């Protein structure tokens, strides 16, 4: 059941290799058009290696700072921190990932970090406001699976290849168009053959990024299904993730800090468009409605249950899970939803959650929060320059 990490998913490996070959092809084709195929190959590999190093050592901090994520501790938002820890335990992860929060009303979340010992989970404030405990748990379980299965490493490997291809093709095609193909074009004779080579190179430059992107999307979608299945297994409660996805997809906010490069990291595609065809090749994520349908038709919490739910929704098609993950798994019982299981624990409502997150955001931007006995919460900026402050409602004075 926990073997899926080790059973190196052969299909993913083949797809990554295909992207690599595409990269070599682009490099070689470009070099060939300029007169030296091997030189082009070397340049492509050098660019790729540099980008890989940057992505490996700096990728997570670049992503986190680009999305303006703030790190939080166990006391800042106890519920979120506890849920991350719960999912860390149920996934059997060795080290607690860092928890980040992004001030953005669009509900979304992502995981990053090159290996399970150096991982981070980031959620937006919109997500914390909208989701209850079970739903949040489902989302965090999904992210935890990305960490546990080393999806982040795989996806950054792929996006680096994709990025290199795009860069090479962009500069290459322009160089070809404007220089007319390097020094060969100045020599006389064989003009026709020359033209054909340049035309072929230009076509390659145009098609390669598109193919690379399609492969990238295919890998990404597969990992999303895997993560959904793992979340159901970790939480034993697929309804949590299903209803979270429903809430996330019904939101009309667009994530401010996301861009094309970071899109596959999020739990739900930040660039979804309404009314788009259901099975879309050009998406990093499977259609949300389909993910919800699969989760809701699961009969138990195991990978085998996800597999059969998937083929039910897809009318026969299946094979989403690696075969080794299905060995020796019987149907796993669901658990009860948190609101029923935890007696005497009133689930905080939408309003309370919004207040909680808003207070946290004030605190994170340097404000001090002083609760007044009349129920008002005073938000005091750090550089107020006074020793005490008066409550605007009841007039009590508070020391800062």
């Amino acid at each position, binding site marked *: 059941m926990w073997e899926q990490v080790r059973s190196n998913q052969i299909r993913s490996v083949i797809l990554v290799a295909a992207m690599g070959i595409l990269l070599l092809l682009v490099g070689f084709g470009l070099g060939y058009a300029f007169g030296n195929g091997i030189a082009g190959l070397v340049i492509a590999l050098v660019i790729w290696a540099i980008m890989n190093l940057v992505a490996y050592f700096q990728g997570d901090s670049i992503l986190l700072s680009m999305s303006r994520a703030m790190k939080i501790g166990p006391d800042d938002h106890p519920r979120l921190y506890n849920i991350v820890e719960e999912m860390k335990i149920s996934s059997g992860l060795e080290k607690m990932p860092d928890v980040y929060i992004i001030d953005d009303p669009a509900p979304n979340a992502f995981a990053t970090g090159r290996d399970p010992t150096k991982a981070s989970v980031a959620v937006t404030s919109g997500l914390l406001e909208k989701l209850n405990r079970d739903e949040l748990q489902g989302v965090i379980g999904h992210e935890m699976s990305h960490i546990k299965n080393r999806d982040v490493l795989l996806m950054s490997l792929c996006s680096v290849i994709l990025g290199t291809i795009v860069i090479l093709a962009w500069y290459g095609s322009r160089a070809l168009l404007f220089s007319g193909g390097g020094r060969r074009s100045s020599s006389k004779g064989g003009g026709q053959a020359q033209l054909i080579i340049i035309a072929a190179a230009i076509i390659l430059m145009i098609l390669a990024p598109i193919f690379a992107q399609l492969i990238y999307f295919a890998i990404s979608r597969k990992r999303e299904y895997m993560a959904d299945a793992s979340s159901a297994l970790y939480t034993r409660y697929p309804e949590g993730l299903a209803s979270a996805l429903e809430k996330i997809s019904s939101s009309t906010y667009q994530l401010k800090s996301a861009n094309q490069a970071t899109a596959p990291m999020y739990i739900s595609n930040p660039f979804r468009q309404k009314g788009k065809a259901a099975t879309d090749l050009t998406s990093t994520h499977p259609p949300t409605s389909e993910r919800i349908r699969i989760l809701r038709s699961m009969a138990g919490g195991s990978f085998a249950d996800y597999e059969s739910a998937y083929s039910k929704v897809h009318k026969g098609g299946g094979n989403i899970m690696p075969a080794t993950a299905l060995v020796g798994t019987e149907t796993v019982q669901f658990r009860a939803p948190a609101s029923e299981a*935890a007696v005497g624990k009133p689930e905080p409502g939408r309003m309370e959650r919004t207040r909680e997150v808003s207070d946290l955001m004030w605190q994170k931007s340097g404000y001090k929060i002083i609760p007044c006995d009349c129920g008002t919460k005073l938000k005091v900026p750090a550089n107020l320059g006074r020793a005490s402050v008066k409550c605007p409602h009841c007039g009590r004075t508070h020391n800062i």
Partner: protein
Amino acid sequence: MIALWVVLGIIGLLLIFFIFTFNGLVRLRNQVKNAWAQIDVQLKRRHDLIPNLVETVKGYRDFERATLEAVTKARNVAQQAIGQGVGAQAKAEGELSGALTRLLAVVERYPDLKANQNFLALQEQLTSTENKISFSRQFYNDSVLNFNNKIQMFPSNVVAGVTGFKQGEFFEVKAEAEREVPKVSFEPPKA
């Protein structure tokens, strides 16, 4: 000559298979041990939270003594059960869970207490600790299932048999009370 090489090759392959299977079994056994350690960490956390909880609740006038004492007693029993085997510990912890659930159900009748900031923070920690205990138990049982499957199934069972791997024990909740969700009554206590 060829026959000799074939025989040597087969022996070599068997040896490689043996090594890989053995290492796989060791890894799974370590995972089981590790998962057990995780449960212990969470159980200890719960034991540490209970004195806090009792202190917070004690301050409230005429809070049911019997319920509080039951929790304290169950905690002491659970602490003594540490190191007395999976079965004994599971039983004691199951009873502690039951006592805690009853306490939290009783709290429903005290609106002041429910609004107390200290108590609310404590309640989040308690709820989460309960979740963490059940998730670590879940991971432990999954690990044991995995390990036992490997020990029982062919061909790894041969290696396990020769090297003497023993099956792991599941952490099962004996106290039925813990599984049932107690009905919370919102009626005031009868005088």
